[in-house]
């Protein structure tokens, strides 16, 4: 007997097909179907709700293997499901780094055993993320890796990046690059500017990111390889990418919810709260405005969380001593709806595009669509539901968020992976 689910009367926003309409969605055996639901089929009443393709996170840190006190695949995928994500790409800066096919297989097997949101494994660019020898990308790909990255740090040497781009391209793997010139950023704790001067904190100049983006764009243009710039955070970096795209360079990029909504003033306002410490750092008003414009005009392909959970002892200390990172899977959608969509700065369909088929395109992932025949990865969102960010209630082990205490409007009601609920608001 086939298993059906009938999602009735919701507002379906599916940018992959240009759809934004009130309609029904029918699931048969874990896939979307154009068939009519049979009589007696179970019904999910979606009236007043948005029905979206499951969100895809290009960039998160599940910390597994090796740093399970921060997060593991079970807690991380639960957090993803609560956030409306049906697939998350986990970065390889684990311990050890994901630089062997066995580690990719471990992550995928663990995710399958946990049975929540899908996990996409990102392999390392270099062995041990040391920036020297290339990781075995062909075997990583064969084991299931969807991309390569040394995230957490940039590839320091141009020659290594030049080779990595060409080699990865030969296996069809995008290179997700953390663009940071350490010679400019070393020792910094927040964005270098008037606020860091006032607070007396060592600064990370915007140039640390921009110099690295410029170098990598040159290499991508020269090699024809697919470069994906992770967590772009400055106006000039985004402008460099916009111009490169106009020239036809194969470059894509992502932005995080925190870089779209917060500035370096958050560090001052919170009086040195380490939950505002993140790399790249929170930038200025002008940067936020440029990022928002680039998200709207499509220069930025995707919103990614850069979900970076940490244990309390890594954050309850002096600002300079604290770890970089924000735990973002459970707040991303609510923050974006509240700060961008509700004030009318971004159309709902544009946001959904950057959270679904945008990231799917970057990774060459088949998801991010509600087309008939696709896997039934679906998220139901109540765009009017208000809720308060309470980190103690997170499924993630990381409670490190500068959005704590924020009142958000727009909440995930249910998340389905292959037609099965992996999260439902109680």
């Amino acid at each position: 007997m086939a298993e059906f689910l009938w999602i009735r009367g919701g507002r379906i926003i599916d940018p992959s097909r240009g759809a934004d309409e009130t309609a029904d969605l029918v699931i048969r055996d874990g896939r979307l179907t154009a068939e009519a639901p049979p009589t007696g089929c179970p019904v999910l009443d979606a009236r007043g709700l948005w029905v979206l393709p499951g969100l895809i996170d290009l960039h998160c840190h599940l910390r597994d293997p090796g740093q399970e006190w921060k997060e593991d695949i079970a807690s991380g995928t639960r957090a993803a499901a609560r956030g409306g994500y049906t697939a998350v790409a986990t970065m390889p800066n684990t311990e050890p780094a994901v630089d062997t096919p066995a580690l990719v297989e471990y992550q995928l097997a663990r995710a399958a055993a946990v049975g929540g949101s899908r996990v996409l494994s990102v392999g390392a660019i270099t062995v041990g993320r040391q920036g020297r020898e290339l990781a075995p990308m062909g075997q990583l790909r064969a084991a299931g890796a969807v991309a390569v990255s040394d995230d957490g740090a940039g590839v320091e040497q141009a020659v290594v990046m030049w080779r990595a781009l060409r080699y990865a391209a030969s296996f069809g793997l995008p290179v997700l690059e953390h663009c940071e010139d350490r010679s400019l950023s070393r020792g910094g704790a927040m964005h270098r500017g008037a606020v860091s001067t006032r607070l007396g904190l060592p600064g990370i100049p915007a140039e640390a990111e921009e110099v690295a983006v410029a170098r990598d764009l040159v290499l991508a243009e020269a090699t024809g390889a697919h470069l994906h710039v992770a967590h772009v955070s400055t106006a000039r970096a985004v402008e460099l990418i916009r111009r490169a795209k106009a020239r036809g360079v194969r470059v894509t990029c992502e932005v995080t919810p925190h870089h779209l909504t917060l500035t370096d003033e958050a560090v001052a306002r919170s009086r040195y709260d380490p939950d505002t410490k993140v790399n790249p750092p929170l930038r200025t008003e002008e940067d936020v405005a440029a990022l928002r414009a680039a998200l709207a005009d499509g220069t930025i392909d995707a919103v990614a969380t850069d979900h970076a959970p940490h244990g309390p002892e890594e954050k309850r200390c002096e600002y300079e001593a604290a770890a970089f990172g924000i735990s973002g899977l459970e707040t991303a959608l609510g923050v974006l709806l509240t700060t961008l969509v509700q004030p009318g700065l971004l159309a709902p369909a544009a946001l959904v595009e950057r959270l679904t088929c945008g990231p799917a395109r970057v990774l060459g992932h088949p998801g991010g669509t509600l087309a008939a025949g696709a896997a039934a990865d679906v998220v139901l969102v109540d765009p009017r539901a208000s809720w308060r960010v309470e980190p103690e209630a997170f499924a993630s082990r990381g409670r490190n968020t500068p959005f704590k205490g924020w009142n958000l409007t727009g909440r995930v009601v249910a998340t389905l992976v292959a037609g099965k609920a992996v999260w439902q608001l109680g």
Partner: protein
Amino acid sequence: MKGRDLLDLADLGADELETVLEAAASMEDVLARRIKKVPTLRGRSLVTLFFEPSTRTRISFELAGKYLSADVVGVNAAAASVQKGESLEDTARTLEAMGVDAVVLRHRAAGAAELLARCLEVPVINAGDGMHAHPTQGLLDLYTVRRRKGELRGLKVAIIGDLEHSRVARSDLIGLTRLGAQVWVAGPATLLPPGLEGLGARVAATVEEALREADVVMALRLQRERQQQGLIPGGEEYARCFGLNRQRLALAKPDALFLHPMPLNRGVEVTSEVADGAQAVLFDQVRAGVAVRMAVLYLLLGGGN
């Protein structure tokens, strides 16, 4: 101000700055006595917690507490649990459990005093946190200038040197501009942080522009490591291009004061001729430091009640 912390001069209004300076004037009278002891803080305890080496500031705070009859305990972090990995939060709780009435903190991390204050009920006095603030140094500079010049309003103050790394400069800028002085800053471009205007400074194109017709001139200490970090070419170059010598000081008004937070790098940021000259008020500053710290302890701990 009773029960409050002193973390940053930005937290004090002009009237509160005046209150501290007036109290400091009374405290200076106590310092002039043969028996320098008043019972104001009898039965109150003060811990000075120094996670960074300091001689002058620590002695100054400890004497200030003792002249007011407080029980003072000095903790040298080199021998303290922080070296064993204890968090500032745990240190704070431990001190509180011991019944301490106020804590003076010196720490290498900006915001450390803020963090300690958040964990403690009793007043925390910031004795320097990273590059952020050194409010009692700012107060003692205000006091020194005001005592010599009568009024801060309308004075031109030039601060020369490594503004990037100087918590003293930040606190001076805030305090001086709040009381109406005009502060000009100058130094090597690689040691000027962005956005100094946001702290009320006017950034001069040259040292000479900053010094011209100044009423007060302050040279900041140049740490030797700035050369190793590649921020400046070297000490000799610095002395020639940015150091305070007799010729440069002559650009200021004839009765201009020369201040320096000490310790001095003679021959680098200042020549001995200037440091030991008639315009230098370095030891007025040191004396004012004790008076100002007595005033702060008195105001935050609320006297003898």
